[in-house]
């Protein structure tokens, strides 16, 4: 029953909110309370749906096939994350959303997006998967294009990529249906063993390519950063947290349940070149390149958007290792990433709400004015960088061990370069916004209201909590591994009991606490301290007066400018993309010019067509 409600509530929410916003532009409070109640209901239903894992409910009959929806371990995991994050986004929007602007259809599209995503993770056959997938990508387009004029053009970029992905998936579904005779996941999985090499490769490419496009894997990632960073900040948090990870759900489902292990092993030519290595190399590039691009960004949201692309690489590599450590790392990383990226983006939204800008070059010293946002961002970046005691560290630790022990040294190195790049860019983020000297114009900035702070507090608790006790989530991840057919991970409440070395986060955190205590005692031994303002600095003899502000924000990592120069601002993939668009434009210009407008040429076409037809018919007999 709950699975059915899980689809009906968002649908009802979408219709009511759409109608409501169509007729009354005002009614902000009513719209907000409705949205809050709606999303709370969805969260409750998602939690209660746990009891129905494994049951199948039947949707409408289409093309002679009854659509099947049902919960599995992994879909319940995703359902929780989707509903949780959308609830937090709505709570955040209660404070952040102002009259007019994107308000009218904001909640309607949020409900519709939920429906699309929940539909995708609940569908148990590729037809339902495709229908809900198409619905999801269209609602993402409408959600994205709400904000500023720039948002509309970047949303268009997303739409093109999404349409290409849907069309490839469409071809994949048609091909699979013809090759295996039915739409259901299990039926296809049983027939996959019988596929010959050519069909297997085609099926794998047609199914996995759209998933890689949606989860912004390396060569196909150009759409994500501009689209997400120019959307309204609450939506950016929601999308970069969960929307692209549905692509990874697709990768997991198609790799493990539909294609299965045997097919993956068969898909290999020689030891080094097989499906896993291909996906992992894509993942490796996804980890390294976006993180370097993030270093050069001057806008906080764009920097975080590039990190969403980068972190996607970790999940992809984790899933592709197909070892118990790697898959557990990949799945857990989806959860951990979701928590701290939303935390970071909510804090950036809090700053943007008060200062009106997210340009890293013009902010600074806000720690005095928005301490809670600062602490939230601090927890977030420690998580994103993957430093203990936050939860980001555990998922990265799992991925590293699986790569090192799995015999992929250079992949592990790529992962590590990604982490270091993340540390550098997140420090630039927190330094340029909160540290340094406060410009005058932000003197009257105050902390954000309760509704915007609540999600920040909750997420801080979750990031630290699941960091110190990773077992809470890893326990369910192990169940997912069983359902996916991967050997589950030995998990305790405090960490991992893996054979080749153990990780106990309780011990690490408690020792960290102890050493902090010792450091505090050492600190107290010293004399009393005198607190001075931000402008009371030692400048080695140079005279500093109050009017001049010294913030070292612009071009923070100048060394990279010398080493990499412009290579990351106009990368090969961007040139390739522009080349493709130019090709389509030339082709369309050629097609246009066939219709020259001259009457005689048109008549010549008709006569030529008749002669051509006769020749073809003569040739064809």
């Amino acid at each position, binding site marked *: 029953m709950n699975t059915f409600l899980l689809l009906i509530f968002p649908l009802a929410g979408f219709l009511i909110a759409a109608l409501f916003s169509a007729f009354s532009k005002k009614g902000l409070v009513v719209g907000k309370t409705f949205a809050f109640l709606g999303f709370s209901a969805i969260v409750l239903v998602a939690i209660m749906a746990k009891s129905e894992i494994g049951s199948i409910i039947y949707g409408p009959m289409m093309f002679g096939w009854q659509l099947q929806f049902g919960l599995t371990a992994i879909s319940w995991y995703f359902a929780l994350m989707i509903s949780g994050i959308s609830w937090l986004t709505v709570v955040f929007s209660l404070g952040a959303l102002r009259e007019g602007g994107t308000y009218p259809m904001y909640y309607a599209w949020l409900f519709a997006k939920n429906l699309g995503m929940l539909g995708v993770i609940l569908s148990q056959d590729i037809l339902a998967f495709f229908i809900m997938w198409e619905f999801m990508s269209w609602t993402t387009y409408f959600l994205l294009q709400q904000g500023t004029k720039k948002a509309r053009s970047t949303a268009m970029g997303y739409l093109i990529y999404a349409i290409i992905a849907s069309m490839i998936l469409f071809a994949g579904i048609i091909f699979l249906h013809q090759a295996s005779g039915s739409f259901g996941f299990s039926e296809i999985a049983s027939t996959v063993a019988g596929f010959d090499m050519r069909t297997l490769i085609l099926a794998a490419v047609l199914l996995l390519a759209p998933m890689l496009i949606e989860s912004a894997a390396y060569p196909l990632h150009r759409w994500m950063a501009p689209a997400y960073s120019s959307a309204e900040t609450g939506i950016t948090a929601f999308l970069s947290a969960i929307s692209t990870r549905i692509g990874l759900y697709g990768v997991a489902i198609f790799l493990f349940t539909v294609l299965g292990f045997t097919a993956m092993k068969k898909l290999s030519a020689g030891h080094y070149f097989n499906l896993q290595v291909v996906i992992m190399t894509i993942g490796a590039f996804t980890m390294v390149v976006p993180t370097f691009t993030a270093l050069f960004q001057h806008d906080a949201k764009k920097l975080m958007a590039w990190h969403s692309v980068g972190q996607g690489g970790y999940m992809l590599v984790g899933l592709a290792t197909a070892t118990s450590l790697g898959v557990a790392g990949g799945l857990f990383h989806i959860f951990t990433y979701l928590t701290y990226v939303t935390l970071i983006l909510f804090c950036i939204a809090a700053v943007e709400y008060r200062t009106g800008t997210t340009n890293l070059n013009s902010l600074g010293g806000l720690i005095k004015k928005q301490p809670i946002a600062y602490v939230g961002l601090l927890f977030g970046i420690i998580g994103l960088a993957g430093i203990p005691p936050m939860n980001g560290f555990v998922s990265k630790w799992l991925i590293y061990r699986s790569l090192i022990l799995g015999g992929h040294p250079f992949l592990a190195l790529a992962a590590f370069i990604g982490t270091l790049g993340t540390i550098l860019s997140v420090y630039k983020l927190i330094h340029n916004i909160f540290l340094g000297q406060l410009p005058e114009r932000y003197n009257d900035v105050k902390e954000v209201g309760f509704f915007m702070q609540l999600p920040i507090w909750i997420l801080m608790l979750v990031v630290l909590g699941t960091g110190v006790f990773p077992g809470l989530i890893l326990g369910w991840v192990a169940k997912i591994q069983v359902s996916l057919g991967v050997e589950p991970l030995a998990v305790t409440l405090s960490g991992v009991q893996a054979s080749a070395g153990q990780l106990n986060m309780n011990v690490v955190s408690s020792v960290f606490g102890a050493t902090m205590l010792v450091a505090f005692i050492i600190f107290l031994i010293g004399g009393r301290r005198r607190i001075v303002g931000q402008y009371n600095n030692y400048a080695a003899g140079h005279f500093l007066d109050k009017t001049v502000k010294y913030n070292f924000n612009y071009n923070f990592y100048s060394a990279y400018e010398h080493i990499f120069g412009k290579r990351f601002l106009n990368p090969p993939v961007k040139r390739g993309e522009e080349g493709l668009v130019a090709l389509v434009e030339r082709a369309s210009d050629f097609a246009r010019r066939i219709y*020259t407008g001259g*009457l005689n040429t048109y008549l010549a076409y008709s006569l030529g067509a008749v002669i051509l037809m006769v020749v073809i018919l003569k040739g064809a007999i």
Partner: protein
Amino acid sequence: MTVPQILYVSAFLLILIGLYSLLTQRNMIRMIIGLNIADLGVNLFLVTIGFVDNGSAPIFRAQAAAGPMVDPVPQALVLTSIVIGFGVTALALTLVMRLFVTHGSIDTARIRGLKW
């Protein structure tokens, strides 16, 4: 070369002349004339299909006619085809007239506002 073959060849030639003028002429009125020539050719072709060697006109009279009758059906077709040809040519000429008023010329090379 029997009579029907001569007629077929001449019909085919007429059609070719008509199409040739349609393809090459730039003056629209000449193209319409070409179209009529082609129509003429087709009508001739249709009539010759019904040709019966020394057949008489297919009119039922009280006493039965002496020899075989010519096939009346193609002639019916030619009648309607001529009527249609007339209607189309009339419409075409009015359009050419209005084109001259608006475009100031009836040369197909210059009337190319709508292209690509």
